[in-house]
């Protein structure tokens, strides 16, 4: 398996090089003038030219790309024309907020979705099945930003039991940064008040983000469980007198997980790429908002940087998913 993981890691390199090349070319082919924009409305042509030189944008495209590629290895991901800050630092600033949100949503989706999928498969066409089917339909069909607004209206504006937006109250100081995850940092600091506040702020955006993957995971789990329940070995186990709980959790769950695992893996990248709407509604200072700002100002380097981070996380997630296949199904061999 080690060889398999190593080989997959090596394959990541050409994929990332290809991706950066594609992004680099597409970003430069777009019309528009990010330097002119960043320089402001009253900039002189000399100032614009000097800025262009400062950011290396006066160089031929292949040289710009080579400079960028060699910089990537040393942690120099270029500079944002708009904020004048190093992209790598910006990404490190915004990434934890997004990852915390994505992980929280994923935990909700998995912890609720998988048991519900199992239960609805076992008690199919029952009340629970119909209820969750409606929930699934709504979860998949409803746009995340709209769900976010509804949640805000219900839990923040009307009931006033959860905060409206943000990661932490505006005038309070969040726990000292260790991981950048406020919940984890609060735990590390042993600050229960901060943990409670961070969780309260996380609740609504995470639910808004989780509903669609939750619905898909639940339906996927239900379908694969139903399929597995009809297998001969399940019948044999029943004939042998094994308890339903043992059959379900020891044998059926593992086999039904394989396809659900793929969906979970895909949803990680889907959520990473799609946090922007939820981040906007909940004013969550993450990578999505950073990328939006960069796209609107055609700030190439942050756009490439964010895409690269999402690609790296996606590739590693899929690698983890592939490894987990073997954990759930020992028949899977890594070649």
């Amino acid at each position, binding site marked *: 398996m080690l060889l398999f993981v190593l080989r997959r890691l090596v394959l990541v390199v050409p994929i990332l090089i290809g991706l950066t090349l594609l992004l680099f070319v597409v970003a430069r082919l777009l*019309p*528009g*003038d*990010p330097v*002119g*924009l960043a*320089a*402001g*409305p*009253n*900039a*002189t*042509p*000399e*100032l614009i030219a000097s800025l262009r030189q400062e950011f290396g944008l006066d160089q031929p495209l292949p040289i710009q790309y080579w400079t960028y590629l060699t910089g990537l290895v040393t942690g120099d991901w270029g500079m944002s024309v*708009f*904020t*004048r*800050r190093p992209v790598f630092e*910006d990404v490190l*600033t*915004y990434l934890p907020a997004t990852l915390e949100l994505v992980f929280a949503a994923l935990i909700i989706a998995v912890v609720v979705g998988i048991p519900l999928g199992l239960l609805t498969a076992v008690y199919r066409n029952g009340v629970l099945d119909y209820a969750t089917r409606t929930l699934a339909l709504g979860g998949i069909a409803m746009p995340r930003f709209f769900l976010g*607004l509804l949640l*805000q*209206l219900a839990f*923040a*504006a009307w009931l*006033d*039991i*959860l*905060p*409206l*937006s943000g990661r932490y*109250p*505006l*005038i*309070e*100081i969040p726990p000292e940064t260790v991981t950048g995850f406020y919940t984890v940092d609060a735990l590390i600091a042993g600050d*229960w*008040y901060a*943990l*409670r*506040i961070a*969780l*309260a*702020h996380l*609740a609504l955006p995470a639910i808004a983000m989780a509903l669609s993957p939750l619905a898909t995971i639940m339906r996927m789990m239900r379908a694969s469980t139903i399929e597995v329940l009809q297998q001969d070995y399940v019948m044999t186990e029943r004939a042998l007198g094994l308890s339903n709980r043992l059959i379900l959790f020891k044998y059926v769950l593992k086999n039904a997980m394989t396809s659900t695992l793929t969906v979970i893996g895909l949803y990680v990248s889907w959520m990473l790429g799609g946090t922007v709407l939820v981040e*906007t*509604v*909940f*004013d969550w*200072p993450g990578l999505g*908002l*950073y990328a*939006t*700002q960069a796209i*609107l*100002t*055609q700030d190439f380097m942050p756009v490439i940087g964010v895409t690269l981070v999402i690609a790296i996380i996606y590739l590693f997630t899929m690698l983890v998913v592939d490894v987990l296949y073997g954990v759930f199904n020992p028949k899977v061999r890594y070649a």
Partner: protein
Amino acid sequence: MLKLNKRQFLIGAAGLTAAAAMPWSAGAAGRKIMVFASTVDIPNFDPHVATGYAPQWLFRNTYDALVRVVGNPPEPAPGLAKSWSHSEDGLTYTFELDENAKFHDGSPVTAKDVEYSFARLLRLQKGPAWMVEGILDETSVKASGEMTVTMSLKKPFAPLLSVLPWMFVVNSTLVEENLGSDDGQGWLLANVAGSGAFKMGRARPGDLYQLVRVEDDWHKGGNIEGAIWKIVREAATTRMMLQRGEVHFALDLFAEDMDAIKDIPGVARIMEPDYRSFSIKMNTAKGPLADKNLRKAISYAYNYQSMLDAAGPAELMSGPLPTGMFGHDPDLAIYRQDMAKAKEYLAQSEHKDGGFTLTMMHAAGYENQRRWCMIMLESLKALNIGLDIRPMVWPDIVAMARSPETMTDLYSIFQSANYADPDNTAFAGYHSSRNGQWQNPVYSNPEVDKLIEDARAEGDPAKRATLYRKFQEVVIDDAPDIFGVLELRKFAMRDNVQDYAFCPVAANTMEVWPLSLA
């Protein structure tokens, strides 16, 4: 490793959920911290480099300028300078500095700092340097005493006191200590070296910037201990934050937001005329609209009433200068929809039968601009002219404005006044030296240039007003723009904000220190 049985796990999970749902803003009450919600980030803290309204808010509260601008109509007020005078010919200004003024590190603000700041601003030629282009250079501002500054102008410049509020003074010692190889730009990008009422607290780019009142602040007034510039992108979220009292000022609201908040208790709406105008620029240098008669035909064909109806709270412009600004003449002969005259001018043009298509651009995402394009489409139909409407993102607009070749036939823009003087609108929007910039991509008329230059050099208000009247007449006759609407400045504040007075210049970059929270 921690091991939990099922019951312990369930109890733990329920406990965490309950804890999360408990009151979550215990420490917020009682502190005089004013929160501003805006959609705009503050990417750069250097007052001699950054532009835009969000940085301007930061500068007005962390730095000081020689002169401030206050009131409605806007008037110059003492800032770092407690008094000033100028020579008969208007070429020399002398400023006496306030002895109480001190930087955040406690050192006094001296004439040497003022000299250093102007030299740096004019050396870098960034930020607000364009406002005094051709008027001041690196050597024009001198410390003529410990607390006396002398400003020698290259030529008379009547709006000088109107532009000075945007030229901030830095702590020269501190900047010199952190000069680097770029004149301190790298350091001032993320640090403050000012004498303003607040110093920088937390700075979380893309999220919030917190200012903390300086201990023993030399500005006397207000009870605000701190201020937060909070970036909120979604209008619905801003409205709810305002409703809950989480923000005190919501700065970027549209007409529909103002309707939505009108009955919310504790929220005061501010809708005041200011100098922010909307107009439709025409490509006077290339294509069919280089023909003045065609431009006039379109100016008469456009349905101004529909434009006003679509605009929400607004008023129609009458000429190139904003209504209410010094020099604006309300009695000018302006264009209003008159199809007979439109057809008359079309007949005099080289395109008398129409039968061609013009291109028009609007900023993507601005619904009002899109509506105004649709009104143009309808209006041009009557002249047998087609219209190709293209939404563009802002970087594309900046690039498009570069030359007559890249500019679309028509394009719609908002323009704010950076300082309270007609020179701002006239120079940025109609002087040929600004060609290639989005405020004036192509329009050029030597007579207009001369009038603008004469007016900015004229010290006598009556003579200036006459020059601006002539300027407006010539520009209206040239018809380079469809003079559109002046939208009311729209923002909202909580009713516990005290001592706030609207100022039509930079209305959304208010000084915080004179304000109080009840």
